[in-house]
């Protein structure tokens, strides 16, 4: 805990930064103050200061403004300051409206409700046991309750009705909070643990049901508040005095943890997780310094302290198995490292082949990470860098501010996993088939690069890959992958509209509309779903709303095959003109000439003179787009993987 003078100093920093509209300074100050003190008055102080610089946060840090509606049955007002501040720390500016205590059903069901009128982009549903499953405590009282399972089913069913009804009329992201397992029950700890229908088991079963429900609804995430409560101690999570007197569901000391948990959960619906973890070796992946201690001297393996590093290696391996790419960024001699991985293989959870790339040299680490980004065709904002050396960490932070830097606690290696898992950047509410195949895909990419260096011309090289494109409805792809592509594709994305699952469904369902994805494979592997287009009919026109391509397949003509497909489909349904649109962003220069390269000409639609969009047209009655000759096209197969 810091002294009062330090606390004042921090607050002055924040106030001054806010006064000169310095968003980064204010956020950094708030982060420090809350890490050091975080008393309720400090939180409110930060909330007030940050609320005054909403525009600066958006303009300088690219913070996203989110109209947020809280559907609730409990008192949330005292924790809104925490929620607003934690959101800003995650680069969101919330514009919050809170619903009535008893009106949650009406708000979700009624098309004229205050919720519907607010037109939020995010809805947080925070209901308590009494609303979701008021009968459960009574039904579970004897621990054998025959009706318990039916009651759980009915509870989930009721919630399904509310969520589906709201989903049908809104594209807002939805967060549904689960229930906290009650700490004090009449069965006592032994009964709760041993009786099949104890309230503990029932609430956990209900939470499972609600989580599955959320998984079945587009743009909906389950917030497991019980996990948070268990982490901090269920006995103190709720202050019975304040719950019974004021319906406050969380004790004041946990407002920050609760708000952080909420923000982490809803963030997964609004931004993609990072994709690459670059780890240092000495004092990070293993203990000691290889160059000094030699391969036998470094600490790794089953005995302490080597097992601390083994735990970290296992954690990385688990990340890798759900598609996070691992890379080594280390200042070492590569030959020494190769030897260490060979000699100590039995004591390491990872082999060199667990990493998609190695940057073992004496170059600056920022330069190595930049090279990796180029080789893997990934943006720097997809990278995480873990290193024990504070100087290296600071150098990367300064030179590559997009990279997330984690300082490994070298003196407390047992905390490595805790420090890493406390960070939100690999959070994902779902794992798609493409995630699972990503590591293989990037290995295949390396093989392709090797082939390219042997084969002469570009066309010859592309022909030798044996590329096959399969076109599918985005609804079959599965839909989650289409939404993931829309959320995270930046470089080859003509309009960068972050369409939701509900939007995609609308394009697919409308007469003359198209929501098509491309699955790509070649002789080296299956890249999965890597491209998407959304188009709609407007009179005689077919208008392409979105067209995008994952950066890992740029340069193989897949975008041309997709455009050709969309053009053919448009012509087949009677469209006479194909209209394309380009909206320039900081990142999408690679596709600026896409439409003109395919024979489109620029035009200005009536009334569109001042917008950021550049429009292109192609007369479908006289021309068509040709798909590259090296690509074999398979249409509308829905029975793949």
């Amino acid at each position: 805990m810091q002294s009062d003078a330090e606390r004042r100093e921090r607050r002055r920093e924040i106030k001054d930064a806010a006064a000169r509209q310095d968003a980064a300074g204010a956020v950094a100050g708030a982060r420090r103050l809350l890490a050091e003190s975080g008393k309720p008055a400090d939180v409110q102080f930060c909330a007030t200061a940050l609320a005054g610089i909403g525009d600066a946060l958006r303009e300088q840090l690219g913070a996203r403004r989110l109209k947020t509606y809280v559907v609730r049955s409990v008192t949330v007002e005292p924790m809104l300051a925490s929620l607003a501040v934690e959101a800003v720390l995650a680069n969101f500016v919330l514009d919050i409206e809170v619903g009535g205590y008893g009106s949650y059903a009406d708000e979700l069901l009624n098309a004229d409700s205050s919720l519907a009128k607010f037109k939020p982009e995010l809805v947080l549903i925070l209901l308590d046991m009494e609303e979701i499953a008021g009968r459960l405590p009574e039904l579970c009282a004897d621990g054998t309750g025959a009706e318990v399972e039916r009651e759980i089913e009915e509870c989930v069913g009721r919630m399904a009705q509310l969520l589906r009804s709201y989903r049908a009329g809104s594209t807002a992201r939805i967060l549904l909070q689960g229930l906290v397992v009650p700490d004090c029950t009449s069965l006592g700890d032994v009964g709760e643990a041993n009786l099949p229908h104890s309230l503990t088991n029932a609430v956990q079963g209900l939470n499972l049901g609600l989580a599955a429900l959320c998984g079945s609804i587009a743009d909906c995430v389950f917030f497991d508040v019980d996990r948070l409560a268990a982490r901090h101690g269920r006995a103190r999570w709720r202050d019975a005095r304040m719950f019974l007197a004021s319906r406050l569901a969380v004790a004041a000391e946990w407002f920050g943890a609760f708000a952080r948990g909420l923000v982490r959960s809803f963030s997964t619906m609004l931004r993609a997780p990072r994709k690459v973890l670059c780890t240092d070796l000495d004092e990070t992946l293993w203990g000691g310094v290889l160059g000094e201690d030699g391969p036998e001297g470094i600490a790794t393996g089953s005995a302490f302290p080597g097992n601390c590093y083994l735990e970290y290696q296992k954690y990385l391996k688990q990340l890798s198995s759900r598609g996070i790419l691992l890379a080594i960024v280390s200042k070492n001699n590569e030959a020494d490292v190769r030897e260490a991985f060979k000699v100590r293989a039995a004591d390491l959870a990872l082999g060199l082949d667990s990493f998609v790339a190695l940057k073992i040299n004496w170059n600056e680490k920022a330069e190595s990470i930049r090279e990796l980004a180029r080789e893997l065709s990934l943006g720097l904002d997809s990278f995480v860098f873990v290193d024990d050396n504070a100087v290296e960490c600071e150098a990367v932070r300064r030179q590559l501010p997009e990279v997330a830097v984690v300082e490994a606690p070298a003196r407390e290696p047992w905390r490595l996993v805790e420090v890493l898992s406390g960070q939100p950047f690999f959070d994902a509410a779902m794992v798609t088939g493409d995630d699972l195949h990503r590591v293989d895909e990037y290995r295949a990419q390396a093989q392709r690069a090797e082939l390219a260096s042997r084969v002469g011309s570009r066309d010859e090289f592309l022909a030798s890959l044996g590329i096959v494109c399969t076109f599918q409805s985005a609804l079959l792809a599965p839909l989650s992958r289409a939404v993931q592509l829309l959320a995270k594709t930046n470089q080859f994305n003509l309009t960068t509209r972050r369409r939701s699952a509900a939007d995609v469904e609308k394009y697919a369902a409308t007469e003359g509309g198209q929501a098509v994805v491309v699955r790509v494979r070649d002789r080296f592997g299956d890249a999965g779903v890597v491209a998407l287009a959304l188009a709609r009919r407007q009179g005689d026109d077919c208008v392409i709303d979105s067209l995008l391509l994952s950066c890992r397949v740029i340069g193989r003509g897949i975008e041309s095959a997709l455009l050709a497909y969309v053009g053919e489909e448009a012509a087949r349904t009677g469209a006479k003109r194909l209209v394309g649109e380009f909206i320039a962003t900081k990142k999408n220069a690679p596709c600026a000439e896409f439409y003109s390269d395919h024979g489109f000409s620029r035009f200005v639609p009536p009334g569109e003179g001042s917008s950021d969009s550049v429009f292109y047209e192609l007369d479908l009655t006289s021309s068509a787009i040709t798909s590259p000759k090296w690509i074999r096209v398979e249409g509308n197969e829905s029975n793949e993987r």
Partner: protein
Amino acid sequence: MSVEQVPTSLRELLADIFEISAERVTPELSMGTLDSWDSFRHLQAILAIEGEYGVQFDPQRIPELTSVALLQAELVKMGAVL
């Protein structure tokens, strides 16, 4: 009465919660005289005071502590070090 009669720590805390300058936090300041002091801010102020001084109010007293002077008196009664 003047601001000096409110201890600095309490004055600054209430200024944060009610989003006003510390100079405005006089003993007379109350729910009736300050617009931003509504029932939710009241609860927030109570929670902030409990966190700051390590005390717990009796829930039945909470709705009655509607001015700075009353809050301060209650804190003194509970033995809080202001």
